[in-house]
């Protein structure tokens, strides 16, 4: 693609607009036009994937895509594609295709699908906006939009429990948004800019107000990233339908928080400034604590989705911890986990949804013998679980290995200990589930079994987890290939930070 191709500045906006337009079209379609709606959904997600692919290629070649206009005096709306934004946008585009397909199957025969898919598309649009935001203000805009777009998805079922979860969710996230806004307004009053800049735009020395701003921004983002003690909403939000949980955990909400923390540390404060002024160490401790705490809570859960939720609390903090190491390999490990965790976790949630929809199983102790009844799903689940534990050569192993090396490089050996403890805990809560799947015989009937033809479940539900599980293997085995997540994270760190 040519350097000065006239369409270039518009590509980020087009990527954003595909999901926005899809949302509007879906809202406008009558409830009973299921076929057309599925078509619009899939077409939009594929189109978006195509646009993102073009931009990934361009960014790899060193192009920059940028669109901006002034909204308010001094405040610009900026969309921009750089390696970091491509990482997150790519993740959301790929997983949107799969989750859409999954959701089509999952929600067949249920009411209010027009509303569901409309907000679903808005949710993906927000994620894309977050990824492509070129300044803190644009980021905030889409960050808040994400909150509003996910609320109807969380309360989708309209039950008491769902409404209560939605209430908790909205209280947490809007309060987080308010902290973020305060931090952002203060930052602007202090520095006069909000534009994400390589190496950060905050200039030393560290004043108390800058330290408070940093704390406000991290707290505001930490709510969505489910950092302890701001994680309370996440396990409750599990009442949402499975595709929503999958998307919330893998791409949209928690990742938006983690991605925001990466942006604030790297492009607002600058990683070296933050490290040298001692801002990162407390954050590293908090992340390490959250990793251990989430795993311990996961051990105690009986409900499969709740267990996965606490596992997310733990895993997302890997990203933050890797970032806080502030050494090249540590950052690579943290950033690559942004993708790895997404793909592994979405696999696990898809599988949990399949057990619930096909067999009526929600609790871990009801899973005995599910491996025989649903082999493909169970293999996918096992791969996801092993990946989380960090079994070589799966994706999770790559993360933990790189981060471990990074910790040694940064001279923070205690982090290696955290990684080891966490892996043991991961094994302690995932292996019993795997054991039940494969090695326990079935003695009772399934709680609510549904049969769909020859396959173990509906094909819309079957293929997404199989594909993501294959990806978990592939990105681990092929980690050193040119466009693997690992290589991209290395490119990013080499090009942008810590040269």
């Amino acid at each position, binding site marked *: 693609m040519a350097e000065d191709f006239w369409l270039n500045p518009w590509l980020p906006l087009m990527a954003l607009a595909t999901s926005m337009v899809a949302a509007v079209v879906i*809202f406008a379609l009558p409830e009973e036009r299921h076929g057309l709606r599925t078509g619009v959904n899939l077409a939009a997600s594929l189109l978006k994937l195509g646009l993102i692919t073009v931009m990934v290629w361009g960014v790899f070649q060193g192009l920059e895509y940028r669109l901006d206009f*002034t*909204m*308010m*005096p001094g*405040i610009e*709306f900026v969309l921009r594609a750089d390696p970091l934004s491509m990482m997150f946008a790519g993740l959301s585009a790929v997983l949107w295709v799969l989750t859409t397909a999954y959701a089509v199957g999952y929600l067949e025969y249920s*009411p*209010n699908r*027009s*509303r569901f898919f409309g907000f679903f598309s808005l949710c993906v649009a927000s994620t894309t906006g977050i990824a492509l935001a070129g300044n803190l*203000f644009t980021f*905030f*805009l889409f960050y*808040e*939009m994400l909150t*509003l777009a996910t*609320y*109807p998805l969380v*309360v989708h*079922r*309209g*039950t008491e429990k769902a*409404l209560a979860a*939605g*209430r908790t969710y*909205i209280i947490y996230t*809007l*309060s987080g*948004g*308010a902290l973020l*806004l*305060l931090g952002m*307004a*203060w930052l*602007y*009053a202090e520095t006069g800019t909000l534009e994400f800049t390589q190496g950060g735009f905050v200039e030393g020395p560290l004043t108390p107000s800058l330290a408070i701003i940093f704390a406000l921004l991290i707290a505001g983002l930490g709510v969505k990233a489910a950092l302890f003690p701001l994680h309370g909403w996440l396990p409750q939000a599990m009442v949402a339908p499975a595709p929503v949980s999958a998307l919330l955990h893998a791409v949209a909400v928690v990742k938006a928080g983690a991605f925001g923390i990466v942006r604030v540390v790297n492009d607002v404060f600058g990683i070296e400034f933050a490290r040298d002024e001692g801002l990162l160490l407390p954050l590293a401790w908090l992340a390490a604590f959250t990793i251990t705490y989430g795993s311990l809570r996961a051990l105690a859960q009986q409900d499969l989705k709740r267990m996965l939720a606490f596992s997310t609390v733990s895993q997302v903090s890997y990203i933050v911890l890797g970032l806080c190491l502030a050494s090249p390999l540590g950052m690579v490990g943290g950033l690559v986990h942004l993708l790895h965790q997404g793909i592994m976790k979405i696999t696990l949630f898809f599988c949990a949804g399949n057990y619930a929809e096909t067999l009526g199983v929600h609790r871990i102790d009801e899973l005995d013998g599910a491996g025989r009844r649903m082999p493909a799903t169970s293999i996918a689940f096992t791969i996801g679980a092993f990946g989380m534990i960090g079994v070589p050569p799966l994706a999770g192993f790559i993360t933990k290995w790189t981060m471990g090396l990074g910790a040694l490089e940064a001279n923070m050996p205690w982090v290696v200990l955290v990684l080891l403890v966490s892996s043991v805990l991961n094994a302690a809560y995932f292996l019993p589930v795997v054991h039940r799947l494969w090695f326990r015989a079935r003695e009772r009937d399934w709680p609510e079994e549904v049969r769909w033809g020859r396959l173990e479940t509906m094909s819309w539900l079957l293929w997404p987890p199989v594909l993501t599980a294959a990806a978990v293997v592939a990105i681990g085995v092929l980690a050193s290939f040119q466009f693997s997540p690992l290589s991209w994270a290395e490119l990013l760190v080499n090009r942008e930070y810590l040269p």
Partner: protein
Amino acid sequence: MMSWLMAGLLFTPLAWAVVSLLVGFRTGRWLSWVGMVLQVGASVALWFAVARESGFYYALGGWQAPLGIELQVDGLALTFVLLTAAVASACGLHAGVYLDPDKPWQRYFWPLFWFLWAGLNAVWLGADLFNLYVGLELITLSAVGLVALGGDAGALRASLRYLLAALVGSMAYLLGVALMYGQFGTLSLAGMSHLAQEYPGLEGAGLAMALMMTGLALKTALFPLHGWLPPAHGIARSPVSALLSALVVKASFFIAARLWLELGPNLGTLALAQLAGVLGALAVLWGSWLACLQPQLKQVVAYSSVAQIGYLFLLFPLTWGVTEAVSQQAQQGMTLQVISHALAKAAMFLAAGNLILSTGSNRVSDLAGVSRFLPFSLFSFGLAGVSLMSLPPTGGFAAKWLLLQASLNSGQWWWTLVLLAGGLLSAAYVFRIYRASFVEHSELDQFYHPPRRLEAIPMMLALMSLGLGLVAEPLLSVMALPFGEGG
């Protein structure tokens, strides 16, 4: 050309008011549609004329002040004229379908509507205190009449209460005007500002200022003088509530703001400025809190108005004794807040009217299942709610951002807490409505679908309020001299 436009702008509302008094509701509706087109056309044309050149003073009928009536036609005034045209037309179109033409008293809707419009334009353009008073009275009397159109005993009671409060407010204001005249010998705002600068420390002017401010605060329903607003706005028919919340309370605030910006630097005190700010802050918190507790949908929206009006009064501390740049930010924030609240609140009341029409009940708990059956009106309500919560990219956010900057830059950080808490509390009452609409009841599937047009109008307003933040920059540049002198 310009004078024709001005004449059209000022005289159509009065002429239409008189003519529609003579005909029934249905004929009045036809006439009013024509009138709205004329008004919107004149406002748009004038706005662009001023945006291209600059503001000017316009002497009505060629008579110069002090004998004649002089009007101050600047970017800010015309933006409000345009806002009025947009919101009033939307409410008028909605009312034409929403109100029941067979009730005999509804025929008075159109005359009152047009008198209200005339009064509003007079206030935005007025350049001296007495003309502002006349405009204000015209607004008050027609607004009270519109509330009474609800037709039942409750509506009458609410409108009488409103009338009483408004008259007390007018008295206080008029007394202040008289004292001012005694002190300065002129009623022109510009002249007074000039004199106050030349002879600082005038005894009595401070008292006059305080009297006028109190009267206007009562008419604007500033906490703790807000008691009359929720019953009146809650019980009026929805298009009327929309007019009242969106425009009527803004008129008295507009006068207060102009007085403050012209005379405040010399006659105001730090205590007065902070007092207004504190009352505004209390209004934000108290109004939002009560909005969260109301069992009735329209009362929620009405209390939300009390809260949103509170933000406006932060103008006083944020423009007193601060640098020019901060004052500018505060004024811009305030202007955007007025505009975005007008659009969002009108959208909200009209959408609430549709929801009530559809469920047949004003109770929040009866909204169960509405998200499935009336998603369009609910969506309009929601989008307007986003603006009230002041999330980006709405006009509400742009306003809040400027106010946050003004308070941080002037070192008055405590207002930032009010702004943030207000945002969260407004989210609480808006989400309470969403939550009710997401509840699923199997037995409650009886809904009436209002006509499409009724659903489209609030959506348009909500989208305008949503998009306001995106065009804040060009809009603010037209109002380059907010509350300032014309060219």
